[in-house]
């Protein structure tokens, strides 16, 4: 295992990105029954990631080690209608394979994505399941704080 490099995603990364996105959603599934994954998750992931790669308002970047994609970040640029500052870079998907964790690679990868987002966004936000304590700890350590909560009930 070497030190991964970071770059924007290419169409040829798609199969691997789909696999990583499914892994991410399967991990989310562990946190809440309302995050149970759909049967067609692979197809939906493919379309979702392909749309994002073709959209001027989304960013898909990958971490690559020895020619293999080992992680990805997907973020959206969006306008905040009521608040200042106006432009937000919202990180919605972030996944790194287990053996690349706890080595500072995730933080470096996030820095790389934030640098790209900063060109258009004034604030950076990140979404993840409320009960994902590892994510809470990770973002808190990097000086993020909670600003909006999403609460759910079954009906």
């Amino acid at each position, binding site marked *: 295992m070497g030190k991964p490099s970071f770059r924007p995603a290419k169409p040829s990364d798609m199969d691997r990105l789909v696999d990583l996105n499914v892994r991410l959603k399967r991990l989310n599934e*562990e946190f809440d029954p309302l995050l149970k994954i759909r049967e067609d998750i692979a197809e939906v992931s493919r379309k979702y990631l392909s749309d994002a790669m073709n959209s001027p308002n989304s960013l898909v970047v990958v971490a690559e080690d020895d020619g293999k994609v080992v992680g990805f970040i997907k973020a959206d640029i969006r306008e905040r209608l009521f608040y200042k500052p106006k432009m937000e870079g919202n990180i919605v998907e972030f996944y790194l394979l*287990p053996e690349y964790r706890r080595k500072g690679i995730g933080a470096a990868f996030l820095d790389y994505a934030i640098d790209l987002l900063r060109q258009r966004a004034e604030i950076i936000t990140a979404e993840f399941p409320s009960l994902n304590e*590892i994510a809470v700890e990770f973002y808190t350590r990097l000086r993020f704080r909670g600003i909006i909560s999403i609460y759910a009930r079954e009906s």
Partner: protein
Amino acid sequence: MAEEYDRHGRLAVSLASFYGGKLEIIPKIPVRSLEDFSVWYTPGVAAVCRAIKEKPELSLHYTGRWNTIAVVTNGTRVLGLGNIGPEAALPVMEGKSLIFKYLGGVDAFPLCINADTPEKFVEVVKALEPGLGGVNLEDISSPDCFKILDALRESMEIPVWHDDQLGTASVTLAALINSLKIVGKKMDAVRIVLLGAGAANIATARLLEKAGADLGKILLVDSRGILHAERYDMDELMLRNPWKYELGLRTNRDRVEGGLPEALKGADVLIAASQPGPGVVRKEWVRGMAEDPIVFLLANPVPEMWPSEAKEAGARIVATGRSDFPNQVNNSLIFPAVFRGALDVRARRISDGMVLAASNALADYVAPERLSEEYIIPTMDDWEVYVFVAAAVAEQACREGLARNPLSYDEAFVRARKTIERSRKILHSLMAEKIIKPIPKVD
């Protein structure tokens, strides 16, 4: 064999009722008249209390604490019976305590507690520390057992042991050390396959690394196949079983995928601690192993494959968990001795180094001229083995600075021998005096 089990079962139930359990407390000081109580109890005892108040460590000297441990369970994973609850686990804890006393001279209290979360379990056991010289955790479901053991080992100043993890790992390692001597292979060079990823094999993998095995060459196989860093359930393991997750990251450097047949191709050693067989391990898979395969089939009551099948498939050395086949890999060879040694030097904990010392002493007890494919590990009949293992554990505790009461190897040896001999003598004399009634005829 099923008949044999039935017979033992019927006998156990009727004797359980006849004797009303297996243990009782017997005084170890003389009581000549009631006047003696003013020494053993109030007012004399207050002076002992004051001395301990001044120096709490004296409680390990002035009371029976030094030789008293608790055998603690919540009954969530008892033998092959599953989660049967604390009350139903008591006969097993009594049995364990009996073995502690008979083979190790250790006063072990069976304690079955209502504690179904790891947090509550840890809190209860921690609260018991002032009266205990050690703790033996028993029959707790995985992965809670890892969490509980790690938390208690970290926070208590007395030895804490989980026999299903450490005992099994230690005796397995001893058997492997001697097997490797026979086939002339080195620990750091062999490819080891662990079948089953429960408490026993996870602890075995951890201990094998400490013993010099190359973790990257070890394959851990469970019901989902060979574990590796990119297996699809790794994220789930990260959250639910960090101990297994850690092994997922560090074993299987070459990313071998598939199931047991793929794992065994070219492997030197199989350590199966999975589910009762036969038929869990097949002959054709053993045939695919490297030259001189070493095959441990530890499931009870029926090993993963019959030893005769393993031999037919070319296994050079076969061990099981059963006493009716050669080479019984049996925790009872380890735990009474580990506690004997640790308690004699008033150890603060049982370190990995002490566990390794126990494995090495158990392996070394088999003299080179006795060592053979059919005899890689001593049997329980050989009671002197406990003295050797206890002395090695005590010596290692002193070496690591963990002993409150350091002893030389020879001192520890003599003390262990005396204590164990005394314990057997007491029981035998109570039997001779018929204070312990002979076993009645049961039909």
